[in-house]
């Protein structure tokens, strides 16, 4: 029964990783662009949540809305003002600019918030759990997060496949050069894509803040988890991303069960294994 518990924990953790991955995957899908600072933006959202709720004492619901709003605005403007200027055939400038952003964000957060590790408490929810027959117990918080992750992914699905904007984003993903010939403003569409991705990053960051301790240097490993979930799931597939997150989550939790120092390594190794045996990922829809 212990292993069933472990499995459930892994699956629930996978929901969070799928959220980490969704924003990265969305930006790559629409713009063929990988944001190296992705993990640092997740941590930035976590610090915003901490500032609004813990420091300024706002109601959590207000805090969540504010974080999503601020991150979305940063995403739109950042894409429009900075990133659109370096996107092109040459992959070096976008990698370098976001790598530079990553270093700036980490050190900036260090200056503002210090290197201390923080956490946003969610009160009784932190320790509540649901008991199931057969000695199984599911933490209320991980379950809630998994449900939120499913909700966000479902929302993205509706956006992509049932709205005019989603149609435009999919068309951009197929053939960005053609989109202006359909009357679409590429700079604006790219910025909207980053805005949506940043909204997802905001939710991911809020969940990170409530789930675990974080510090200014927590970003890179979140980037790596997001990246691994994307590759495991297969490029361009929203639900593949969820599968990728779950595979990674289960690998990590099982690894931790074997040896506490083995948690992250187990996730990386499963990722490399899948890269070797199935480089296109589990549910590929797109070529890199």
């Amino acid at each position, binding site marked *: 029964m212990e292993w069933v518990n472990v499995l459930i924990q892994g699956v629930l953790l996978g929901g969070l990783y799928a959220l980490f991955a969704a924003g990265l995957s969305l930006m790559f899908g629409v713009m063929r662009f990988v944001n190296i600072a992705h993990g640092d933006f997740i941590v930035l959202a976590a610090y915003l949540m901490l500032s609004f709720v813990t420091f300024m004492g706002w109601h959590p619901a207000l805090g969540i809305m504010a974080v999503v709003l601020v991150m979305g605005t940063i995403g739109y403007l950042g894409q429009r003002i900075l990133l659109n200027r370096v996107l092109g055939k040459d992959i070096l400038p976008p990698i370098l600019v976001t*790598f530079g952003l990553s270093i700036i964000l980490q050190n900036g957060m260090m200056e503002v918030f210090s290197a201390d590790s923080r956490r946003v408490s969610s009160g009784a929810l932190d320790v509540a759990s649901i008991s199931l027959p057969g000695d199984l117990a599911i933490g209320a918080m991980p379950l809630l997060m998994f449900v939120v992750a499913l909700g966000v992914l479902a929302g993205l699905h509706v956006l992509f496949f049932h709205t005019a904007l989603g149609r435009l984003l999919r068309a951009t993903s197929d053939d960005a050069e053609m989109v202006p010939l359909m009357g679409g403003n590429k700079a604006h569409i790219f910025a909207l894509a980053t805005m949506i991705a940043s909204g997802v990053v905001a939710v991911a960051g809020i969940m990170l803040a409530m789930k675990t301790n974080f510090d200014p240097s927590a970003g890179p490993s979140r980037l*790596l988890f997001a990246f691994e979930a994307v590759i495991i799931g297969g490029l361009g597939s929203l639900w593949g991303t969820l599968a990728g997150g779950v595979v990674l989550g289960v690998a990590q939790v099982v690894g931790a069960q074997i040896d506490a120092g083995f948690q992250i390594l187990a996730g990386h190794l499963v990722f490399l294994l899948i890269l070797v045996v199935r480089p296109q990922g589990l549910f590929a829809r797109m070529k890199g």
Partner: protein
Amino acid sequence: MTTAPLTRRKAPVSLIAIFVTIVFLAAAPFWASRGTLNMLMEALAFLALAQMWNLLAGYTGLISVGQQAWVGLGGYLFFALAMFSGLPLLIALPVAALLSGLIAFPIGWIAFRLQGAYFAIGTWVIAEVFRLIAAQFSALGGGSGISLPIDVVKSLATSRGARDMVMYYIAFGLGIGSVVIVWLMLRSKWGLAFTAIRDSEPASESIGIRIRRVKFMVYVATAASTALTGGFIFLQKLRITPDAAFSVNEWSAFIIFIVVIGGIGSIEGPILGVILFFTLRSFAADWGSWYLITLGALAIGVMLVDRQGMWSILKSRGVPVLFKTTRWFEP
């Protein structure tokens, strides 16, 4: 088949500049203080790392943010060989590099399954795997690392001054050697291959396969020489820990910023970058995180203004090229 023509007016100036610099650096143990000597060693090691990253990213387009994998692996293999194999230190260093090169074959094979920016992040994952595995080796101190035992250090030379001199000349060899090797490579048939990579990336199938092979070999070669430099860096530090050995900030961020700010895709760029980096650092010693923030902002600025960096700006102001890499075919 080929000659490198030297224009009469400019060549002597740059040749003299290069010659004077080399003599000046070669004589450093006889004029520099111990602090200056240590700084020069560090700068020469950074120059070697920067030239290797530049060879990889600037000439073959493989952007890695995981070169710390090879710095750390070189360091750890060197420590393991020095402590357990009984090999003399000066042999253990190249052997560690060679072993790293061998390991780079399977590792590269995996990394090459990813392209573009995903290759970059993939190399980072690999470096993390190396770091986490290194932390599992209790014989090498596990997560808290290990120091090189005194008797092993003393086998290099018994007096501190003599050790400094040996280490300095290793650093000198690494720094100057990296420049010479890249220069020779660009003037050989490899240089032509790099031009082909730049001009016709998705070219015909047969060229495509050859390009892939060239890129792979460059990846392996830079891994080995980065590991050689890594081995030296931890010989100089005398202590290795997983976090220091596989630090993304130290061995990727700094190196990448050096190359990009100095000028990617040129031999002069990394040299200029190292000079700028160490000059800025001497001013910014107490800036803390602001130093890194400044470097990051500079790198972003370079990408927005001129992707070729400071060297390109200097060149357009009439500074002569130091290292001619153009090949001329005799008619």
